[in-house]
């Protein structure tokens, strides 16, 4: 499994927050979803990965090389932040000219194709565009220099479901090439359920887990039970739990085992949203 991006013990201290020894990797040909509540450290992680902030410890390598010592790697990385980074009086045509002057592999034809596909008029000023159009413009600009890794920081937040679906299709097309990968942070976990191959969950600056999405989908489960059954559950098996009005919700890593073991309890599949909620709002035991 070749990793395009390898993050090891990434640490960054702020007076009120610490990104604490974050480690994960993004393999070739996959989509990695970075999830976590607001303020969990997703954007800090991305900023540190992209060398936009100074890291206190740890190492980040793209194709085995550090970005700070191999600036040409930036040619292979496309980035979309939350919000457009071009001034509002620019047009897609001008954005294309600016990006063309920056990237050696810029493909004007491809950019125009994306503009056409996303129905973005080349001469419309950014200030006259909707939020969705702006995101599409950023994605078109990020893809037209033919990157191998796409990094998206909450890029699809604030878009309606139809527009998000269109954009997710573009991402899926992108990773059809097995040398391409995407790392996307999002708190819209349903998007990640659709497209991600791996999920990395960051909570309070630490990685809770970094796993294949299918492992979560097929193995993780939530035991829903009353207090009496909860007391019988082996506490070693509990990843996180939360008491609601009349029942306990207990996250376990092996739902089939739980189904066999606790016949008096209901064991549901765990959606990423459920997992995130239990870790953030419940009691984390592991």
């Amino acid at each position, binding site marked *: 499994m070749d990793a395009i991006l390898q993050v090891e013990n990434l640490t960054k201290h702020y007076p009120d927050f610490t990104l604490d020894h974050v480690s994960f990797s993004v393999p070739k040909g996959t989509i990695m979803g970075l999830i976590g509540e607001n303020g969990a450290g997703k954007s800090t992680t991305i900023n540190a990965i992209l060398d*936009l902030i100074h890291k206190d410890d740890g190492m980040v390598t793209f194709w085995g090389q550090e970005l700070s010592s191999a600036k040409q790697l930036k040619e292979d990385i496309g980035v979309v932040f939350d*919000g457009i980074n071009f*001034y509002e009086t620019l047009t897609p045509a001008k954005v294309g000219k600016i990006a063309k002057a920056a*990237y050696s592999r810029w493909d004007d034809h491809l950019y125009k194709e994306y503009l056409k596909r996303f129905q973005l008029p080349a001469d419309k000023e950014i200030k006259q565009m909707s939020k969705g159009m702006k995101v599409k413009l950023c994605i078109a600009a990020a893809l037209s220099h033919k990157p191998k890794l796409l990094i998206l920081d909450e890029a699809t937040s604030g878009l309606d479901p139809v527009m998000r679906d269109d954009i997710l299709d573009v991402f899926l097309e992108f990773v059809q090439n097995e040398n391409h990968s995407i790392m996307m942070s999002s708190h819209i976990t349903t998007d990640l359920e659709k497209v991600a191959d791996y999920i990395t969950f960051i909570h309070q600056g630490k990685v809770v887990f970094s796993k294949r999405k299918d492992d979560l989908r097929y193995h993780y489960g939530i035991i829903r039970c009353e207090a009496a059954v909860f007391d019988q559950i082996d506490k070693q098996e509990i990843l996180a739990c939360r008491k609601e009005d009349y029942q306990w919700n207990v996250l376990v890593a092996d739902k089939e085992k739980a189904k066999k073991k606790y016949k008096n309890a209901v064991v549901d599949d765990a959606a990423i949203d459920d997992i995130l909620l239990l870790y953030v709002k419940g009691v984390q035991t592991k």
Partner: protein
Amino acid sequence: MRSLVLKDLYNIGHNAKSMLFMLAVLALILIPTSGAPAYIIVSAVLCSMMIVTTFTFDDNSKWSRYAMIMPVSKKNLVAGKYVVMVIFCVIGSLFGLIVSMIAGLALRKMTFDMEGIVELLILALVALALSLVSGSMSIPLVFKFGAEKARVLLVVSIFVPLAVCFGIYQVLVLLGIELTEQLIFVLLCCSPVFALVWCYLMYCICCRIFEKQEL
């Protein structure tokens, strides 16, 4: 770096009309009252200050973050700003020169003889030097304090170079070097070179400031 320069020129394009209008109004006020020299200098310095406006645009769109994910270095970004500033200064000086020539002819305050043209050309060179000095000093201020706070401090970028010039003059007086007309002429002709050296110093300071900044 070409992309960074291009971006600033596109961004400032929208302000070009209002700048032209302001320079036209100033031409009507300054040339008849204070003469061509004042107008050429004001035109050049005003244009050089447009560099601060480009930072405001950058701040609004969080451009610096984006620029750093493109294949450019922090030094490239700083250098790009200096190139744009030099372009603004050259445009401002040339604009002042051309308008002054036209106004001088229209008001019959200037004749197209060699002496008059050389005088205006030297004035344009001095204006270019002054605008380069003040403009180049405004850039580290903006990098350090941000575009909005730096606007208040811009007065520093005008007075510090004047203070430096005054200091040099005092040193020359102390050393007993007489400022003859010929020496002044040579100094004025060389002023853009001094200004470029000053620009390089400011560029180095900017690089140090920006290198430490997180985006």
